[in-house]
């Protein structure tokens, strides 16, 4: 039986949206004007996603095509970011490199973060032994340097993105459960939950119909930090030669090739891939910070990504 207390009215007071009933676009424009840094970061993220899907079709050259006479050309008219040892166009390789990171981030998100988020909500909301188990395992996992965990797993299962996905995915699982647990712990003591309970709604219904819609925005915060970490770790492992298979356009791997093939003479081979990584990670970090500030100032600084 749907009652007044169960309706939208009460839930909306705790909601993150701006109170006015303005048209969709002007509300967005206003949020962007209040948070210019966040808006720019969001734009960079959009560009990254578009490149991740269509990157190679925008590329002026085939990113894998070799052309020996054009090797080590400096940044200039034909190749704005220069060319590699094999005459491959650096700019095209960077555009195409977004794809591997988008795919990697998406896998970590779907197989690691989202299940972790669900576990976090359940454990934060209903607690007891499940909560204890997840929290202690998460503490043990995060106590170790991420890179050491990655190296240990790679020693066991061999190099390749599969192994990296597994380890980063487990990390995201714990990260997601932590973030959403903290949110759920706050949320379960709010008035609308008590109101819904007083109308006789079952716990499952409260969780599904009331708590879940209210914590949805926090998934976005988690999403941005998942992508920031995923891009950083994929780049690091590919830089170390333990990630993507050789030849695949990847910012980390290209940076490493740049250093190996004489980065001190051809610095563009190192600088441009490095800027691409830094820019995308920065954009995701700033987008996460902005979202968190809009959603809940109390959580400020509590869930930033760790290196």
């Amino acid at each position, binding site marked *: 039986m749907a009652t007044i207390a169960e309706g939208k009215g009460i839930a909306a007071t705790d909601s993150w949206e701006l109170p006015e009933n303005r048209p969709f676009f002007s509300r967005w424009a206003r949020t962007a004007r209040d948070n210019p840094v966040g808006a720019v970061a969001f734009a960079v993220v959009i560009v990254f996603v578009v490149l991740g899907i269509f990157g190679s079709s925008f590329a002026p050259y085939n990113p894998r095509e070799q052309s020996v006479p054009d090797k080590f050309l400096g940044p200039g008219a034909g190749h704005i970011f220069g060319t590699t040892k094999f005459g491959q166009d650096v700019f095209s390789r960077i555009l195409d490199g977004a794809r591997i990171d988008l795919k990697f981030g998406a896998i970590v998100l779907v197989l690691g973060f989202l299940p972790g988020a669900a576990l976090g909500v359940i454990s934060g909301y209903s607690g007891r032994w499940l909560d204890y188990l997840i929290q202690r395992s998460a503490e043990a996992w995060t106590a170790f340097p991420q890179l050491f965990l990655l190296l240990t797993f790679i020693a066991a299962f061999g190099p390749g993105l599969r192994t990296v996905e597994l380890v980063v995915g487990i990390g995201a699982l714990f990260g997601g459960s932590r973030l959403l647990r903290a949110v759920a712990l706050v949320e379960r003591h709010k008035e609308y939950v008590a109101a819904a309970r007083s109308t006789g709604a079952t716990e499952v219904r409260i969780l599904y119909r009331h708590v879940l819609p209210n914590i949805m925005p926090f998934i976005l915060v988690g999403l941005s930090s998942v992508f920031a970490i995923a891009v950083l770790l994929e780049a690091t492992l590919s830089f170390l030669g333990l990630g993507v298979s050789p030849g695949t356009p990847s910012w980390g791997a290209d940076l490493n090739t740049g250093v190996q093939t004489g980065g001190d003479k051809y610095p563009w081979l*190192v600088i441009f891939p490095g800027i691409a990584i830094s820019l995308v990670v920065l954009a995701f970090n700033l987008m996460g910070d902005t979202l968190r500030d809009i959603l809940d100032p109390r959580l400020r600084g509590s869930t930033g990504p760790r*290196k």
Partner: protein
Amino acid sequence: MLRYAVRRLSFLPIILFAVSILTFCLLRVLPTEDIADVIGGSNATDQQKEAYRERYGLRDPIFPISVHASMPVVTVQRHSQYSDWLLRALRGDFGQTFTSGKSVRSEFVRGFPASFEIVFLSLVFSVIFGITFGVLSAMYRNSILDYAVRIFAVLGTSIPEFFLLSLLIIIPSYLWRYSMPVGGYVSLLEDPLTNLRLFVPAAFVIGIGGSSGLMRLVRTTMLEVLRSDYVRTASAKGLRQRSVIVSHALKNAGTPIMTAVGTAFIAVFGGSVIAEKILSINGNGLFFFVSTQSRDLPVIQFLAVYTAGVVVLINLLVDLSYAWIDPRVKYS
């Protein structure tokens, strides 16, 4: 407090034991490949593989106790890979590496000074830089310095360490034909100048990159503390600003800062792999990396237990430092 420290330390062997079992499972039970194939590579003959199995005891069961579905339900073997490893490890022998056949322990001891130096120096830079600028940015809130610190803190978490270190090597070489003494490790006592020419710039870059988290935390904690009554009282009674900041504010912000220093240590410790790889420093980080590439299981096994030990000890030190900073914290 001593009793607390002893009690916490008594957990250390239990944790190390658990970590050793978990890594054994991870490295030897879960992978589906034959370990003899991993050691020998793809072109090893069957005879060579047999020799490997014999030499490293790979034909023994992995754990001494095995459980079956039928009778007898539990059987205990005299020899197993794990119990043999454990008995030797207790005597300080961690076996031989698969690739070179050298003792894991002596390789580790050889690499230790270089790793220690890079981790220690980086942490020193990290702490000095993080605390100084964190405090200054809280004191002069919303000044240009504060904005610079905040921008820096976001950049520091976003720019990967390997990019900065690559630039450190490349840029001086490109601009001024100056190359750092990369490669190998010259001890500080042997040739201090060559040693410091490599380690100081490297540790500076790693330290500054790693200080952003600390800086952020020091800033927010200090902002909170500076608003408190006792800080206002201290300034009101005419104390110099320096003593208000150092002995009233900073000391009260001490416990969260020590937690962040512990986190910074773990970050720098993990980052030593990348630093040693890029700068070709023959330390334990590079040892870990090279062994990962060649899947040298005895080395990984040892380094995992060692890392767990370091992590536990650092956390203990951080906890004990609370009592040292804040007399209200009592351990018994």
